[in-house]
């Protein structure tokens, strides 16, 4: 991974209201960067500014060190997979994919080859002459991916490119995308709602909310060391519990004091404690640090998800073993599993 290929400096965007506020961000060459955040937080708007379809109200945008605020989209070495596909309805699949190549005056032979290769990649061999309208949602999405990928751009912006695909195909495509990124050396800026996808594929994850960046970090950082309760809550399901940091390595919540691995907070500071559902182990009632009653249990395929009422709080627990509703259970966790975050106001 090399130098900064893209840099956003203090980018803001206003429509009737502000939808992006002072975004500062850089993307390294060959990096896989994912934007993550709730619906309407400004992910698509950020991509549109990168792609050149929207001018930032404020701030500067750099590509390879040069300010590209005023560079039109077609002069940017950036391609986009649009959230709503934007396939050309008057062209068949072949011509949709060939569109970018034709602009570069690629020879017909090569175009034919490349289109074929891309169709194979997205599992749609033989679809060359089909009309866009006759494709299923997922098929259209795959064509959108193929249309962008075939140009081997320096930077590829992908706005939920796999959202309409089933798990299996999604995994395949994830591998393909990751593969292409390494092979061809493309820089990816990726938007997804699938947190597992974000965590699996990215080098860097950017968590946004309400037009502002909440945290930038590696997937493990983001997951294990969320900087605030919003991130913790948003990334994976968390139990966020009010607590008091008695002193370094010691925290009180749910009426008990626990050892933990965090330090550096003022004494008796009010803090948030984050407990991941999968970190909590369900044990017979008398063996648990905390006792409670199971109030609901849902089959999730890989595991069961149970809610345990511990009197003042409902704790979410995941386990491959099922407990029945109304069972009395105990809950256990290790000091490692307790994450402490300073309280701040954050709005959803």
């Amino acid at each position: 991974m090399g130098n900064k290929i893209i840099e956003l400096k203090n980018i803001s965007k206003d429509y009737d209201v502000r939808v992006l506020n002072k975004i500062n961000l850089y993307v390294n060459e060959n990096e896989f960067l994912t934007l993550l955040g709730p619906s309407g937080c400004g992910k698509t708007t950020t991509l549109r500014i990168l792609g050149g379809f929207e001018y930032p109200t404020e701030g500067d945008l750099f590509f390879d060190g040069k300010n590209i605020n005023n560079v039109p989209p077609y002069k940017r070495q950036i391609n986009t997979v649009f959230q709503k596909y934007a396939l050309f309805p008057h062209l068949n699949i072949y011509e949709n994919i060939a569109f970018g190549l034709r602009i570069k005056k690629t020879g017909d032979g090569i175009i034919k080859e490349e289109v074929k290769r891309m169709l194979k990649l997205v599992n749609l061999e033989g679809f060359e002459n089909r009309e866009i309208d006759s494709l299923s949602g997922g098929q259209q999405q795959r064509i959108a991916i193929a249309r962008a990928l075939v140009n081997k751009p320096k930077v590829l912006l992908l706005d939920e490119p796999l959202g309409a695909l089933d798990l299996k195909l999604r995994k395949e495509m994830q591998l393909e995308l990751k593969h292409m990124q390494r092979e061809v050396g493309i820089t990816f800026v990726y938007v997804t709602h699938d947190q597992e996808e974000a965590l699996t594929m990215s080098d860097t994850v950017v968590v946004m909310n309400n037009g502002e960046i909440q945290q930038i970090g590696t997937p493990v950082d983001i997951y294990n060391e969320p900087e605030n309760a919003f991130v913790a809550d948003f990334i994976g399901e968390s139990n966020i519990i009010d607590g008091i940091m008695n002193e370094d390595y010691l925290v009180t919540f749910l009426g008990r004091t626990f050892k933990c691995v965090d330090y550096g907070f003022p004494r008796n500071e009010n803090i948030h404690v984050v407990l991941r559902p999968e970190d909590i182990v369900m044990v017979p009632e008398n063996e648990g640090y905390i006792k409670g009653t199971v109030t609901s249990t849902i089959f999730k395929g890989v595991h069961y998800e149970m809610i345990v009422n511990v009197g003042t709080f409902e704790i979410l627990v995941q386990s491959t073993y099922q407990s029945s509703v109304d069972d009395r259970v105990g809950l256990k966790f290790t000091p490692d599993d307790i994450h402490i975050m300073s309280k701040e106001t954050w709005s959803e």
Partner: protein
Amino acid sequence: MNKKQKFFAYPYVIWMFIFIVLPIVLVFLYSITTKEVNNIKTINFTLNNYKLFFDPLYIGVTIRSINLALVSTILCLVLGYPIAYIISKIHSKHRNTVLLLFILPMWMNMLLRTYAWMTILGNNGIINNFLNMLGLPSIRLLYNNSSIIIGMVYNFLPFMVLPIYTALSKMDQHLVEASHDLGADNRTTFLKVILPLSLPGVISGIIMVFMPAVSSFVIPRLLGGNRSLYIGTLIENLFLVTGDWNFGSAVAIMMMLIILVSMSILNRFDVDKEGSGSNLW
């Protein structure tokens, strides 16, 4: 971005200035001067021509013309919308052919077509002959308001159909489905979804029919037998027969004003995305 495409209109803006604005300015100049002058130095400005327009005689002519054009426009709309809709549903292979067949009659000279209508509608015309053959009495079909309206509708119908067809073609079928899905029957779907979505086309059609219809003079003359005076005939006569270009210009300018004002009212209904999104419903 798209903003740059503004420049595409600049040549036409210049064109407009030369070929539309300048002539209109000229017309306007005529309308506020008196006839007597041939020398620029002795131009006499006057508002008399406009004053004259407000004579009940001319106001009556204006109102009658607008009424007639309105009726014709509405008829064109009512008859034309279904046609546009049906054509837009025709298989793409045949659509352009039907479209051409539709406009082809208009390529025959208008005078000839109108004469043909006279042959059809006349007292001894085809229709009356047919009625007589059936033992029915003749009816007076020519030289009344209905024959003018028939002529207008005949001549302007394609100008209503084509833009509406344009707006309807390739309309997002999913929206129609969504409407049906929400319980709207065909009629409601038409009123609440298809019609509003095709509104830009309807408005274009109305403009293309209404505006020329107001000032049309051949049809009232030939099919109306000139039994009533319409504004097109009035202006035509003022310019050619009387040679009163000044008053003629004033009438023309007034007519333009009236129509543009009524159009701007109509345009309010145009769902223009830039606007605050005015509601039709």
